[in-house]
């Protein structure tokens, strides 16, 4: 059943949004927004009858009536507030977004020839041709209600362009902070264009200083041209009463290489849709994920890898550690099109249950239309290994420490795949602290 009250709410917010835009309402972008709003109004939020949302009930999000934020305000924020989220001062170019809007005052710029790093809002004017060519061309507006809603309220986000054969020396950190005591909806929209032969590391992190529940509904599109290399690391550490919907799309061309590491720690409900389209030969795509959940948290990872052309490889490792009464969902789609001979696709999904009440639904979904391919998938769900525990204890390690050690080892398998040393060390410490804190809360 369609939930109409929420549709009316966002329609009325959209009317206000339009009024706030003044002259912009005739632009190409706004036509896109209007189209998206129509899509959303036609669909409404998904229900559990929708196969794609069977195990993730978004009714709490639909009911909440979040308010989109139209203007930037950095009121009351100090640099020290931001510094908490900079991974110990990671050496990088950093764009800071407050409630979805670029905060120039907190952002750092490290100009490099051939590299454009800007807010999407200004790029719409300064790089209109590029933006119009790529924005919303890969993540379909009507993919689901959340992408439609996010697109309808596109306001700002990050725009990164790396020119041909340019290698970005430092990582680019896109830091999204939600703050304040209002139930806000933020829809960051990011567009990253890596031209042929270029190389970049992009780190996205979603964190909170907010005292009220909120909705982050972010969309990030990557255009990865021929021979380009992208490492993407994402940390989702929203507040525990908030909601995070994150859509990421990699559009890959011939011989390009993408590594994506997605870490989920926060949010009451988190849903990630990560898609890689391998639209050329010789492409390599690696999607890794680690989710930690406890209490009543719900974390859902939907991945899709689309092998459209021959001789491509994809590797996927998704792991979850679930404690308390938390719920995990994993759905991993791999499409191998008729043309995509010699595809090598491997998917692994492992869940560690730390309590008897935590549950997981995992579903590999392989659709293979080519005949000369190598596709493997495996899913395991289990508790800590008793034999490993006994081995540790027989060497003097206490039971709790043995549990922590083994749990941490399970997690570091993913963290170790982050290539940026300083970031990996920071994530390591965070996960360690989180696991120990989780233990103290739960037992």
């Amino acid at each position, binding site marked *: 059943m369609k939930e109409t009250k929420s549709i009316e709410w966002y329609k009325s917010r959209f009317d206000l949004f339009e009024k706030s835009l003044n002259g912009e309402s005739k632009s190409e972008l706004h036509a896109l927004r209007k189209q998206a709003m129509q899509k959303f109004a036609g669909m409404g939020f998904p229900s559990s009858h929708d196969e794609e949302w069977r195990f993730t009930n978004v009714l709490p999000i639909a009911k909440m009536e979040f308010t989109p934020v139209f203007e930037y305000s950095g009121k009351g924020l100090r640099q020290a507030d931001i510094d908490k989220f900079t991974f110990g001062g990671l050496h990088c170019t950093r764009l800071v977004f407050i409630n979805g809007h670029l905060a120039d005052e907190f952002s750092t710029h490290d100009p490099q020839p051939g590299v454009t790093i800007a807010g999407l809002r200004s790029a719409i004017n300064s790089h209109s041709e590029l933006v119009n060519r790529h924005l919303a061309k890969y993540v379909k507006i009507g993919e689901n209600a959340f992408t439609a809603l996010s697109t309808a309220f596109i306001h700002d986000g990050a725009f990164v362009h790396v020119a041909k054969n340019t290698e970005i020396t430092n990582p680019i950190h896109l830091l999204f902070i939600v703050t304040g005591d209002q139930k806000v909806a933020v829809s960051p929209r990011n567009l990253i264009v890596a031209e042929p032969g270029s190389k970049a590391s992009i780190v996205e992190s979603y964190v909170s200083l907010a005292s009220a529940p909120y909705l982050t509904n972010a969309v990030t599109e990557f255009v990865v041209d021929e021979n380009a290399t992208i490492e993407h690391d994402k940390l989702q550490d929203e507040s525990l009463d908030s909601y995070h919907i994150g859509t990421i799309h990699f559009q890959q061309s011939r011989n390009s290489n993408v590594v994506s590491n997605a870490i989920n720690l926060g949010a009451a409900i988190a849903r990630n849709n990560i898609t890689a389209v391998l639209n050329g030969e010789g492409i390599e795509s690696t999607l890794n994920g680690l989710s930690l959940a406890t209490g009543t948290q719900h974390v859902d990872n939907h991945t899709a890898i689309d092998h459209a052309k021959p001789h491509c490889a994809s590797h996927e490792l998704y792991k979850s550690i679930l404690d308390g009464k938390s719920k995990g969902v994993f759905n991993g789609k791999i499409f191998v099109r008729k043309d995509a001979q010699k595809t090598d696709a491997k998917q692994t999904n492992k869940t560690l249950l730390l309590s008897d009440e935590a549950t997981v639904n995992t579903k590999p979904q392989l659709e293979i239309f080519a005949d000369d391919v190598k596709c493997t998938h495996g899913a395991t769900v289990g508790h800590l290994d008793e*034999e*490993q525990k*006994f*081995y*540790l*204890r*027989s*060497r*003097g*390690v*206490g*039971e709790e*420490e*043995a549990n922590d*050690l*083994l749990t*941490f*080892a*399970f997690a*570091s*398998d993913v963290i170790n795949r982050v290539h940026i040393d300083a970031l990996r060390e920071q994530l390591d410490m965070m996960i360690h602290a989180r696991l120990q804190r989780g233990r103290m809360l739960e037992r």
Partner: protein
Amino acid sequence: MLEVRNLHASVNGNEILHGINLKVNAGEIHAIMGPNGSGKSTFAGVLAGRDAYEVTEGQVLYQGKDLLDMQPEERAREGVFLAFQYPVEIPGVTNTYFLKAGLNAIRKHRGLELLDAVDFLALVKDKMKLVEMDQSLLNRPVNEGFSGGEKKRNEIFQMAVLEPKLSILDETDSGLDIDALRIVADGVNKLRSKENATIIVTHYQRLLNYIVPDFVHVLVDGKIVKSGGKELALLLEERGYDWVREETEAVA
């Protein structure tokens, strides 16, 4: 050091050990030999505190304390060490980290200062020579991708680092080629002292050519049916286990 009195133990309700009596003093090496399924590994597991085994009767005193009352980690901290028949792989935990966690837990228990990374490494490098272990194995995940010989050497290496008072070697010779066997045996011999004791659990006499026991006990059907000196091992090698069984049955 160790006194086992009338020990009975079961797995899933089936009694495997039917009343074992054994006394081990400091400085001694005891070999427990027996055919497959005689309860050798069960006995080693009970001493180390494996919880799949249920002790239904009897007593084990270790340095005057009730061993069966202690958790596996307490036993380790009190100086009991089990060299596993099948050393366990722990992906994601390096050998160094694993050993340091164990050693420091034991040192803490003994009121010794905890070792920092530098001191630990110095200690470890010294002990590695004992079992001719390659240093590259230190930073690899525990036993992951190790050959059979490397795993067994790793056990003796751990023993060297943790300096136990009572070591129980469970089928340490199984799966070893002759060179590896010699290296492992050399390690054990070098660690031997007047203060510590060793129990070697084995099916074959082979290892006892290198580690000479003071006492040999024959375990058949969950009971020690014969005890003697090192010559008993040779007799077993020559004549197998059947004659002991027959002799026992004749007595009964």
